[in-house]
């Protein structure tokens, strides 16, 4: 244990995802030794992100105004919606340059043991986006692991009767892995070879 401010910083850092007590201590002492202007830049970035960034009211992606950059882009098709778990998955798919439709960010995957059910995700918002008949195809791009597959299964069953084509990314993605770790060639191929799972 350290004195006051240092320990407070270590505690705060230790609450970040993927940061254990040892890493928290390392980061804290790095910041202590760092130049004051470097630390100020970090503080500004944190303040800025909380003040300016919010979630797109259409797709749930991070945005700097009511709509995200992708939803506001008139050159992108409204007919195909790609459903992902997290905003970082949008970034991964954008890197492939394979997809020119819009996204829908669920905010996670169905995981009963963690008490996450369909109502805890942006499923209702997705269904209302499909209601006006503009969307012709929904691509389910949830993670290729058990929770992601189960979420895709649930959505396919829900969307199927609406007369919208539902497709799932092709196999070839690392099963058990995270979408964000797939390289853009593999991910691009998975897009090209996606299979229809419901209509």
């Amino acid at each position, binding site marked *: 244990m350290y004195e006051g401010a240092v320990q407070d910083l270590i505690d705060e850092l230790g609450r970040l995802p993927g940061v254990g007590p040892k890493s928290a201590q390392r980061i804290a002492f790095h910041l202590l030794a760092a130049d004051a202007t470097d630390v100020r830049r970090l503080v500004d970035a944190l303040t800025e992100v909380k003040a300016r960034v919010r979630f797109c009211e259409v797709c749930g992606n991070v945005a700097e105004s009511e709509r995200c950059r992708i939803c506001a882009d008139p*050159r992108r098709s409204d007919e195909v919606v790609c459903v992902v778990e997290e905003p970082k998955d949008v970034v991964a798919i954008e890197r492939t340059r394979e997809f020119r*439709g819009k996204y829908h960010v669920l905010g996670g995957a169905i995981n009963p*043991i963690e008490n996450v059910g369909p109502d805890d995700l942006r499923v209702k918002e997705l269904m209302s986006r499909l209601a006006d008949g503009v969307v012709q*195809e929904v691509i389910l791009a949830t993670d290729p692991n058990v929770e992601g597959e189960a979420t895709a299964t649930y959505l396919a069953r829900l969307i199927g009767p609406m007369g919208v*084509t539902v497709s799932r990314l092709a196999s070839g993605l*690392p099963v058990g892995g995270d979408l964000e770790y797939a390289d853009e060639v593999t991910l691009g191929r998975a897009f090209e070879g996606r299979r*229809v799972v419901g209509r």
Partner: protein
Amino acid sequence: MPLYRDDAIVLRTQKLGEADRIVTLLTREQGKVRAVAKGVRRTSSRFGARLEPFMVVDVQLHTGRSLDTVTQVETVGPYARPICEDYGLYTAGAAMLEAADRLVEAEREPAVQQYWLLAGALRALAQRAHAPALVLDSYLLRAFAVAGWAPSFTDCARCGEPGPHHSFSVATGGAVCSRCRPPGSPAPAPETFTLLAALLTGDWDAADSSDERHRKEASGLVAAYTQYHLERTLRSLRHVDRTPVATVAPPPAPTTPAPTRREA
């Protein structure tokens, strides 16, 4: 024992750092073990798919200071895929995994019967041997019996008076005679008692031929029994998909999806 090998069921996984996972295993010989699986979230991992919930694996572990490390995995029961491709199976299976995790509390205390019970139930689920809700309820009743909370559905759970009886008391442990019956005890249908007894003993012919109405009532009683005996509620129980299994239409023939590219 720096290096050891065992059969194991993957109960749950949690992300750790950049690309690792902590896996909670119910092993056949060592009981519950938590171990680190390194790099499994990366594309190049050979382990990732094998260390998913519902998988039954033959695993080699290296003993560590706090957590063991997975060094090798072979598939024994590839149940993850069939289970997560059906939402009813997935939610029933998740409740089974959570119950096992809770009933086997201590780590490294052999729980051989719990291991075999769960492995058998996951196989039945993956092979669609019976309705998922029946497999779940049967598993819960039997897992509780193994844990020392065997319910009684025929003789009175309190005085042993031979049944059948009309009332059910969660706190007393099942069927209760008219003298032992606590006030306010529900009186389920006689067929529901028969179904519960069949689920507890594994009489699948009787269970499979039961009515939807009695299955629903039995599930409600099993859920109440589960919540009563576990200190904290079983979170996944409220997410169990109870949509009756309809005759599912065959999947449509694959068609070519709409092009995703639209030239700007």
